[in-house]
């Protein structure tokens, strides 16, 4: 019993391995209860409605009017939202709608509110404007009065007379006939305010326009609200003195062009005072009016803010409901709406229950009828992910949504992605930092998920479990690489290398072997020995021997090891990728593809690079000095040439290599030719049998007698479409029998073959990035550690130590934790998308997007941003 339970792996049904089985159902909904039914279905959120009116434009549909009304209401709500936000209020968010609103009532209410608000806004605006004008006027009166007096005192009438006469229009006019008083009267002035930044340009232009015949006095008055824009602007008060009507016109124009506000300014000081007091009184009056209006407006906005979220939710729902209703066919005579929808097979019962419940509450006589429909359209792809698997599924989905029921790469990606990342990010210390971040996010996920985190951090938070896994794996690979912030640790015991005489014998002192007790650092200069691993010794038990750190031969050793490691990992990873095509072909019953694609692909990859992997392992185990480059190159250049027995890793190696190369090359035409030819033959046979029911049995026979294969649109008859990516067979397995083009299939097969053969070489090489990045990571961290932290510590000054530690911490965080982890992430992503998923993943499906109230808000936000 216990053994049975132990060996129960549940592999017959693995979550996420394939997308959920979907069914197309037809719903017959009585039109009087249509709205309520759709609301009930939206609550359940498990149906993806098919648009049955694709030929109709949005305006021709049955419920176009209602959708338009909802749009209008949404517009009003947005207007309210803006106003509420402007007023500094926050709309209260209610989790559940408190009461049931009728849409019509809400519409009327919103319309009234909008009118009220708009008229209020207009009023406030008008009052504000007047108010601001008065305030400016007051400022002008106050400031301009001062320098006006001063300026006026400075201008002597006779000075003006002289100047003025020079610029007179009529040179013939008698000078003396003009009275002094009259001339002075023609010295006009303009007072007003102008934004500070325009003052200089304003003055310059005035000067040029009047050719210097003007006098400008100005002074800063600080921040004043501009009457037109109602914004605080820092302004200057100016008074321009000028002579002549022409100048007046010019100056007016310039004032207008510069947006300077002019104000009437009485000449007489007594009138000035009078005006000032008038203005003050009016300002006070206005202030009370404005305050009253503002209070009223605020009260209104508060009531709006309290309900805004609820209304918005309601309108959003209603709009979605009418959109859905618009997708249905209306049968006018029988008063029934016909809908078609995709539903996950397992959820059918839930949907039926929801339908029954809604029928009971609406107490209609007619029930909704739900019946399955046989279709050849390919169903949507739907995975039930959880918070852990979501991020991994997203990685796969951003490459392409899986074809219906094809193998989901996310299942293996769950663990291979963090693993490949960790190969490139192997450092115990850095992993601890990464883990701390991930654990913090996971621990606080309930509070964090409710907050708006912004783009960057939101993305990080979304991938928290991914980061957690990456951290855990980095911890492991960090132990394996034996690096803690680039320093080796001695967790798994002392080094296996000991100090020996160069000839391999133990170093003796007083007739006793002291080899095992010598500190390796003293080996060379005290004993003139070399570090060697004794013949019978096992290697370091877990990970890289710590002695390698900082040695002259560290890099050659690590390079050789990590390069070989990359190839071993790469070949294994790609083999799993090809293996997935087998699972796909078995599931879709595509025996032809198994024989003509899976097998030759496996042979090609493994007879060349799988063989290389085996050679690597043999070389490691035997300790021979064979040059593997040489072996691989001459395997192609001179197959069958006898090998030096000292170099030979497998007995009879050269013969074996001839066989491997030969079979690998045979695998190429094997991939290329038989499949299109067999497909052609099948097609011809089908054509010949046309007219009989043979075609029917070929196409649908398997579907009819096998209940399960109803969900396998690519099964059996769909074989021709399984070969190439872009063939017409992508949508459903039907109909391709009629347009089979041999040329097209052949070209696809050719592309596929060339891609695979070249890919086998280039993809294997591509895995070398694992080596490169892991090397870069360890080198960078060791530079930061040795050159920054250790160097400053060796200076033995607390000040430098603090600086050194600070720089080290910044470099570790900025360069290693952020940049390096990002680049390792991207390279892991590429290895999965191109090298792994490229081997089997079609990714031409479409996502299951059920009609659901829950995520309406997110969808709307996503659409608007």
């Amino acid at each position, binding site marked *: 019993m216990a053994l049975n*339970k*132990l060996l*129960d*792996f*549940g*592999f*017959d*049904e*693995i*979550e*996420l*391995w394939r997308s959920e089985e979907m069914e197309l159902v037809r719903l017959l909904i009585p039109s009087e209860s249509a709205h309520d039914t759709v609301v009930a279905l939206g609550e359940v959120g498990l149906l993806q409605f098919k648009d049955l009116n694709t030929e109709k434009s949005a305006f021709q549909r049955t419920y176009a009017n209602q959708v338009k009304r909802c749009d209008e209401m949404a517009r009003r709500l947005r207007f309210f939202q803006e106003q509420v936000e402007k007023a500094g209020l926050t709309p209260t968010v209610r989790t559940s709608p408190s009461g049931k609103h009728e849409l019509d009532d809400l519409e009327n209410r919103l319309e009234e509110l909008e009118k009220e608000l708009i008229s209020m806004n207009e009023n406030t605006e008008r009052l504000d404007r007047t108010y601001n004008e008065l305030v400016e006027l007051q400022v002008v009166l106050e400031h301009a009065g001062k320098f006006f007096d001063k300026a006026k005192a400075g201008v002597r009438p006779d000075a003006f007379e002289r100047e003025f006469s020079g610029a007179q229009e009529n040179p013939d006019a008698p000078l003396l006939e003009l009275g002094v008083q009259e001339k002075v009267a023609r010295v006009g002035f303009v007072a007003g305010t102008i934004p500070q930044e325009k003052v200089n340009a304003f003055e310059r232009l005035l000067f040029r326009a009047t050719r210097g015949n003007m006098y400008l006095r100005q002074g800063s008055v600080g921040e004043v609200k501009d009457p037109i824009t109602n914004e605080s602007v820092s302004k200057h008060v100016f008074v321009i003195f000028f002579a002549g009507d022409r100048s007046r016109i010019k100056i007016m124009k310039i004032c207008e062009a510069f947006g300077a506000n002019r104000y009437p300014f009485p000449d007489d000081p007594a009138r000035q005072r009078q005006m000032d007091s008038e203005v003050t009184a009016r300002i006070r009056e206005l202030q009370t009016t404005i305050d009253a209006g503002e209070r009223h407006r605020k009260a209104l906005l508060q009531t709006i803010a309290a309900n805004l979220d609820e209304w918005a939710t309601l309108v959003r729902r209603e709009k979605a409901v009418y959109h859905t209703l618009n997708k249905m066919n209306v049968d006018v005579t029988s008063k029934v709406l016909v809908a078609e929808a995709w539903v996950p097979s397992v959820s059918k019962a839930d949907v039926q229950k929801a339908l029954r419940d809604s029928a009971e509450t609406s107490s209609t006589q007619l029930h909704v009828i739900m019946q399955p429909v046989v279709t050849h359209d390919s169903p949507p792809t739907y995975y039930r992910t959880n918070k852990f*698997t979501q991020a991994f599924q997203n990685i796969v989905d951003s490459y392409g949504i899986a074809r219906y029921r094809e193998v989901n790469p996310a*299942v*293996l990606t*769950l*663990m*291979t992605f963090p*693993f490949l990342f960790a*190969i490139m990010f192997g450092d115990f210390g850095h992993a601890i930092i990464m883990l701390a971040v991930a654990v913090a996010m996971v621990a606080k996920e309930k509070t964090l998920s409710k907050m708006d985190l912004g783009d960057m951090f939101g993305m990080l938070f979304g991938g928290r479990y991914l980061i957690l896994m990456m951290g855990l*794996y980095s911890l*492991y690979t960090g132990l*394996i690489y034996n690096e803690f912030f680039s320093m080796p640790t001695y967790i798994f015991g002392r080094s*296996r*290398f000991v100090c020996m005489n160069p000839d391999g014998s133990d170093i003796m002192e007083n007739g006793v072997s002291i080899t095992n007790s010598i500190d*390796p*650092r003293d080996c*060379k200069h005290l004993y003139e020995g*070399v*570090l*060697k*691993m004794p013949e019978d010794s*096992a*290697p*370091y*038990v*877990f*990970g*890289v*021997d710590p*002695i*390698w750190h*900082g*040695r*002259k*031969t*560290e890099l*050659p*050793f690590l390079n*050789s*090891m990590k390069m*070989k*490691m990359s190839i*071993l*990992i790469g070949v294994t990873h790609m083999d799993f990728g090809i293996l997935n095509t087998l699972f796909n072909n078995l599931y879709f019953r595509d025996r032809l593809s198994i024989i003509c694609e899976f097998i030759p692909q496996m042979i090609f990859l493994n007879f060349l690079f799988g063989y290389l992997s085996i050679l690597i*392992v043999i070389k*490691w*185990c*035997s*300790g021979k000095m064979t040059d593997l480059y040489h072996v691989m190159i001459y395997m192609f250049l001179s197959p069958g040439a006898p090998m030096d027995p000292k170099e030979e890793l497998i007995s009879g190696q050269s013969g074996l290599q001839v066989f491997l190369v030969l079979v690998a090359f045979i695998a190429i035409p094997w991939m290329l030719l038989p499949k299109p030819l067999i497909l052609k033959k099948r097609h011809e046979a089908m054509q010949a049998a046309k007219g009989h029911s043979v075609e029917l049995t070929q196409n649908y026979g398997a579907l009819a007698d096998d209940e399960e294969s109803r969900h396998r649109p690519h099964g059996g008859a769909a074989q021709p479409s399984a070969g190439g990516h872009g063939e017409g067979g992508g949508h459903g397995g039907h109909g391709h029998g009629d347009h089979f083009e041999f040329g097209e299939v052949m070209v696809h097969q050719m592309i596929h073959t060339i891609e695979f053969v070249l890919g086998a070489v280039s993809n294997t090489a591509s895995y070398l990035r694992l080596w490169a990045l892991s090397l870069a990571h360890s080198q960078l961290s060791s530079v930061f550690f040795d050159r920054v932290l250790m160097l400053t510590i060796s200076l033995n000054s607390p000040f430098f130590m603090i600086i050194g530690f600070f720089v080290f911490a910044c470099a570790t965080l900025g360069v290693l934790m952020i940049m390096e982890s990002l680049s390792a992430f991207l390279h892991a992503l590429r290895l999965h998308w191109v090298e792994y998923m490229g081997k089997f993943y079609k990714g031409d499906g479409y996502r299951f997007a059920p009609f659901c109230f829950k995520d309406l808000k997110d969808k709307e936000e996503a659409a608007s941003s």
Partner: protein
Amino acid sequence: MGFWLGTLVFFLIQIVTTACINFFGKPGKKGLTHIMAFTTVFQCWFIWAIIYMAQMNPLINPEYKE
């Protein structure tokens, strides 16, 4: 010898993990959990084995810088 011993350790870890999932895990579908356990143990063994084998017969020895 050490290699096979290490492999045995990983194999035992795998058995213990499987047992834990089957006897103490939440009831329900366990396929994905088992796959994850398999891949994890396999990968951990794989990288350990690679590094271990690479050091079995060192062709270069660590040398001190001048």
